[in-house]
């Protein structure tokens, strides 16, 4: 077996475990830390898929900025009330998700996807090619994204402000 296949298996087992921990742990802080682990593992998968720039951005933006925001809000609110658990609802939700996973997997593995990847050139996934694509084909979405982020900043300030 190829070394990359073994690495993929190890990472996917760890990824599924940490995702399950995000959903099933009771303490919110533990959930957040499991999510950080999952995001790091996804970043490793990105690097394996010749997307080093996206892996770096994943660690910086997701595991860095967004998770710090989550942890800050958790510590700010300090929710102490224990979460009520309903067995029936958990069983129903897990069953629905299992059905979803099975149908998605069947659907995705049935497509006529190329068996062999296109041979990656030296520069594939480098910041240079990413920026070239971003600033030629995707200029308009890029500019709209900046407006979206401005709206998010203003909205967050207005929403979280204490009313006088």
């Amino acid at each position, binding site marked *: 077996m*190829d070394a*990359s*296949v073994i690495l*993929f298996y190890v990472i996917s087992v760890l*990824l*599924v475990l940490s*995702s399950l921990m*995000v*959903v099933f742990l009771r303490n*919110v802080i533990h*959930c957040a830390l499991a*999510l950080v682990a999952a995001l790091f593992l*996804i970043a490793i*998968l*990105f690097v*394996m*898929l*010749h997307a080093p720039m*996206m892996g770096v*951005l*994943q660690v910086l*933006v*997701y595991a860095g*900025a*967004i998770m710090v925001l*989550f942890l800050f*809000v*958790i510590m*700010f*609110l300090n*929710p102490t009330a224990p*979460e009520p658990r309903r067995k029936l*609802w958990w069983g*129903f*939700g*897990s069953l*629905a*998700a299992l059905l*979803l996973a099975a149908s*998605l*997997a069947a659907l*995705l593995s049935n497509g006529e*996807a190329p*068996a*062999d*990847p*296109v041979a990656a050139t030296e520069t*594939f*996934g480098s910041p240079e*090619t990413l920026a070239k*694509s*971003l600033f030629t084909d995707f200029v308009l*979405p890029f500019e709209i*994204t900046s407006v979206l*982020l401005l*709206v*998010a900043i203003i909205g*967050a300030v207005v*929403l979280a402000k*204490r009313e006088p």
Partner: protein
Amino acid sequence: MVPLEYYLILSAVIFAIGVIGVLVRRNLIVVLMSIELMLNAVNLTFIAFSRYLGSMQGQVIVFFVMAVAAAEAVIGLAIVISVFRHRRSLDPQEMQLLKW
């Protein structure tokens, strides 16, 4: 080389785990974290297709998804804070002001 299907099935599993979190958890912060997990599963699909089709467009779209996810997390957490301020609770079941 890992076949494309492995990545697709892995991301389907991660997406379904995120769906469990959104359906059954009764804590708004964990629900938001599960949504982040689902977004990441979709990002993984995009990156895998980008690699196997040899096109940069998937990576660019993941870039935009990250920006939208950041905006979503910021707004979602601001709403969580303001809801907590009014109701002293993070349980989505108690938010039924608009329920008929």
